């Protein structure tokens, strides 16, 4: 269902999206297709949710302050506790994971005080303590995650 053009766009344009007046035209020229082919293919990837968007990606802690937090919740209460956590606007990912600490979420706040307020608020609302593991170093290597798309 994915064409070679879809695959090229997915694997080769995770970075280096042209900062030029006609970026889709520039990509088209590089790939030997037309600008409308590129726009059409990207629109298809977007509409089918294969890509979440095209745009700038911001590393953690460049804007605001964030932490990775976890709670150990008995299975029977997980659903209710997860709902309380997800309802918090400062929480932007919330995953259930297989572990004693089974609820993992990222909190992003405007500053350190705000972050602490959010953590305290979640603890008060849920009745469980929150383990906060703020980022100390980010070992980002400038390579895009390469995907095997042969069976897509």
């Amino acid at each position, binding site marked *: 269902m994915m064409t070679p053009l879809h695959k090229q766009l997915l694997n080769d344009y995770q970075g280096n999206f042209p900062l030029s007046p006609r970026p889709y035209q520039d990509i088209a020229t590089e790939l030997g297709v037309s600008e409308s082919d590129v726009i059409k293919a990207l629109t298809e990837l977007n509409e089918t949710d294969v890509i979440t968007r095209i*745009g700038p*990606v911001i590393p953690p802690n460049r804007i605001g302050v964030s932490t990775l937090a976890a709670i150990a919740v008995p299975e029977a209460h997980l659903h209710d506790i997860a709902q309380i956590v997800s309802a918090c606007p400062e929480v932007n990912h919330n995953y*259930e994971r297989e572990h004693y600490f089974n609820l993992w979420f990222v909190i992003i706040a405007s500053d350190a005080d705000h972050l602490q307020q959010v953590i305290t608020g979640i603890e008060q609302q849920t009745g469980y303590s929150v383990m906060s593991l703020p980022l100390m170093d980010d070992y980002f290597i400038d390579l895009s995650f390469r995907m095997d798309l042969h069976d897509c």
Partner: protein
Amino acid sequence: MLDSTDRKIIQATQAGLPLTPEPYQAIAEQLGLTAGDIMKRLLAMQDKGIIRRIGVVPNHYKLGYRFNGMTVWDIPDEATDELGQKVGQLDFVSHCYHRPRHLPEWPYNLFAMVHAKNREDVDNQIRQIAELLGGFNHGCDVLYSTRILKKTGFRSSEKSACDQSVIDQAT
């Protein structure tokens, strides 16, 4: 670090660049700027490291990468920089972070996110990380995600109110 114009540009592009022939022009018109201003500021933010990259953001899950493992490692604190760089370079690792331990229940200080199409591949990836860490590996665990309970979306139909949702931090 960021002025209000930079913030507006980040906010305006969080749902994705428009899929029209002149996307920067479209953003510029919204903000009362020129396309040149937008491109110049995006480039400057990239140079300063405020923007990591500009491009297609794939949805790994949709592409069959259903196994998202958070691998966590207990390594000596003084070795985190050197080993973190090496682990981060592995092509199946999307994010690699140093975080504090939380003793006694959480002894791990290095986090590496791996993505695979099946559990076997994840097991194989964990073996490769363990090999790379060698004698510095004092313990590890892998936490599979069993359910995504919330992930702030970026589809244009679902514009988030929070300008920080574009932040690239996987759990």
